[in-house]
């Protein structure tokens, strides 16, 4: 088992009232799964994904990631954990505008103790694999949306994560670009990477092996 959420609640206090963002979430994810989270806008999909990605905390319940109890970990430990095992893909790509494609890919490696030559090799590998060698010296603004998301995924993959979390990765793309990205996810999943994605589209959800539906912070 890769991760397990057990009776997880998350809330905010607003005007003396407790507003629940997540209610009693129970979820088990095995290695190699491809899960799609669906639900209307505001139902808590992003919140759930951020909790899984350890970017955000929760108020009650337990969270087991590999052998670690995430709810008991210190902030710094938690950060180390997600930095090692999890890659993030965002709807709006979040590439750094002032870095080239190559540098964007290299960036996560800089924060881990890789040598310059190793970094070069890993970046070259990724550029090859995603077929973007020709774009390596361009800046994000010079790429189409689909190409940017490709770089975003390549960046998420470069440090070999066990889990990829993607929040509406095709939300800003046209349908053809979207299909390409989903095809890529499918392929990565077949190579053994666990994927959890948030999506609005039934068609995208079908690429996955399991669908989780959220409504008002509750799994239905």
């Amino acid at each position: 088992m890769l991760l397990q959420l057990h009776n997880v609640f998350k809330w905010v206090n607003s005007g003396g009232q407790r507003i629940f963002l997540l209610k009693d979430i129970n979820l088990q994810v095995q290695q190699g799964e491809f899960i799609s989270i669906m639900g209307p806008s505001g139902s808590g999909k992003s919140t759930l994904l951020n909790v899984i990605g350890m970017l955000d905390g929760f108020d009650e319940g337990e969270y087991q990631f590999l052998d670690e109890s995430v709810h008991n970990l210190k902030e710094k430990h938690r950060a180390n954990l997600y930095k090692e095992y999890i890659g993030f893909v965002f709807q709006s790509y979040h590439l750094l505008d002032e870095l080239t494609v190559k540098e964007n890919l290299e960036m996560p490696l800089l924060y881990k103790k890789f040598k310059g030559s190793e970094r070069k090799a890993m970046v070259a590998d990724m550029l090859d694999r995603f077929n973007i060698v020709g774009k390596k010296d361009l800046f994000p603004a010079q790429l189409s949306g689909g190409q940017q998301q490709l770089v975003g995924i390549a960046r998420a993959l470069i440090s070999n994560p066990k889990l990829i979390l993607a929040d509406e990765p095709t939300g800003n793309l046209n349908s053809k670009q979207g299909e390409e990205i989903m095809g890529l996810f499918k392929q990565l999943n077949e190579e053994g990477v666990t994927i959890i994605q948030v999506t609005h589209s039934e068609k995208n959800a079908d690429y996955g092996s399991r669908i989780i539906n959220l409504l008002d912070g509750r799994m239905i």
Partner: protein
Amino acid sequence: MFRNYIRIAWRNLLKRKVFTAINILGLAIGFGSSILIYLFLSYHLSFDQFHNNPDRIYRMVTEEHRDLIDYEASVPPAFSKAFRENYEYAEKVAKVVVQYGSIIDTETNGDIRKFKEDVAFIEEDFFKIFNFPLLDGSNNISLSEPNTAVITEEFAEKMFGSTLVVGKTFVLENDKAIKITGVLQNLPSTTFLKEQIFVSFVNLEDFFEFAASESWGGITSNLQCYSLLKPNQNVESIEDALLALPKEHRPDSKNKHVYKLQPLSDMHFNPLYGGIDPVLLWVFGIIGAFLLAIACINFINISTAQAFYRSKEIGVRKVLGSFKAHLFWQFLSETFVISLFAVMLGILFAALFLPSLNNLFELELSIQSLLTIEFFGFLLLVLASVAFLSGSYPGILMSRIVPVLALKGKLSHSDTGGNTTRKVLVVAQFAISIALIAATLIISRQIEYATNSDLGFDKESIVMVEVPVDLEPIQYEALKDRLQRIPNVENITFCLSSPGGSENNWGTSIKYNNRPENEEFSIQAKIGDEHFIETFDLTLVAGRNFFKSDSITEVVVNEKFGEKVGVTSPDELLGKTIEVNGASIKATIVGVVGDFHDVSFAEEIQPAFIAGNPNWYGEIGLKINRVNTKETLEKIEQHWSEAFSGYIFDYRFLDERVADEYEAEQRYLSLSKVFSALAILIGCLGLYGLILFFVGLRTKEIGIRKVLGSNVANILALFTMDFFKLILIAGILATPIAWYLMEQWLQGYAYRTEIHWWIFALAIVSIMVITLITISYQTLKVAVTSPVKSLRTE
């Protein structure tokens, strides 16, 4: 890693060109001023550091205890010999007497040239105490023979156009032929010694008998006495032993001498004995630090404001594995890159403005003198501390940004933090500017007050010319006659010195109305003929002017004198006798004049008497009508040169001379003007950056406000009110501090202006106006933009 930081830093800087430019420019001005201030300070701190045993060299000085204590950087003429021969403390003792403006003639191949120079008469050991070597590097200088001299390389060039001048002669004061026996290497600018010509002490008696004598009777400021003590001497016990000297040699004097040893290192920094005021150096250093601080504040403010725009980048970096420390160092390297550019630009600024600094302080500092290890150490230190001070706070703020919020784009401007800090820092900037403006106003008011107040005498349209040698009374009459006949000359007086801006002050003992003892105070002798009072337009308040006479039998005193001897009505003084300068003058008081400011406003008016004595005339004062001034001056010169052939004509207007008394104040004024201008300039750069940011932040809000009916003025007020509040707070903080400090400064003046609250109000209002001007361009730009445009960007 570090290369990566720098590369990204570089791109970030290019991307935000305006902010980068503001930061670099502000810091560069700060650095430039610091470099100049460093130059200035290191110049002063290096004074007389090059002698062989600087810690054993002392100047002998005197405290004159009367009703007040006077500090004289001199000792009686007999002191030198006594200290050398009757005491065991010193290895070497030497006195120096300077004759200012001596006439020197040289002849090279029949070409006769005249110079007016300060000449030092020195006792032999002078060059054994101090390290002023000859051209060959030795100090083999003997001036024991009369009519010998050494001169500096520079002056040799000036006199003869060559440094091969050993054996040549010059004529001193149209009288003595003096032979040059050596040429000294040029004196460094960082020494107390300013003279270029050094003549055997034996010759002094022909020119200044008193200083050449072995007298304990008084002190002349032309004389200085130096000593190289034997190793391991206790200065205090020497000073104790010296207490015996006045007891033995001047037992009856009301002017009690106490002789002190002033260390060489103290000479340049002790204002009591004519040194510069070390407070000035402190003020300089602190102001340099302030300017840098203001530039750092700009930097911090702009960067923390920027943190909002950069929150996405920071969020991404954190999610992708960056630790806080990474972000912190990344930001610090950006700061470092900016500071590095600023330093380079700062050095350029310093080089550009060095000539003005030199001009202001009459210095010859050079930018080359910066090529020292110390300077690079200083630069590195300043660079590192500026980069760290201005980089670390924004660095911490940015590294604290919470990634989820940043990525959601949900961070509001206040979440990125630094709002309060920013306000505090802006207040600090404003406060510094307000204090500097207030200081400038107060200094200029004091100068204005000192130069434009009624000084008790007339200083307008009075030309002062020198009397270089004593004339017979009959010659004076003849000269006066001729001068009188020049059309625009209205009044003429021969005198020792003019009132105000005097060069020849002479204070001496006084016995009043046959009292048994001399008075506790000393009296200023204003020696002048019977036209003195009329020419300088002093006011007679009682009695009459003295009549012309061959010797002093009648005097006029000032009101202050009456006050000092305890007489309330000037009329009571009339008919009383006074004895001045021992009993050398005995005379009857026939008149009393109103007080006049004989010295600068820093000092109290002193008791004085006016009497005529042709033996002591040093100057001629001519009241002229200012039409055809040039022609009048030419005529004066013509008659003067006939009477004093062989001398060089020189004149000075009395009002200029009075203004010169305030040279130091004028410098303070120029400096405080420059510093306030710089502080305001850097501050404005920062304001401009901030307003650019705020306007960007609130474009949409402004659009909405306009749709809802706001006009341009409302919107301008929206932005300015925030700043005005900060300025008011800054004013409230700055006022008491600046008030206190300037009050301290004014305490140094016996006659001074008062500080008024409106000075500070004026400073605050001017900062408000400057702020309004700075921010209105950007604000007006958005305020007049069509709201549709700013809202459409959403």
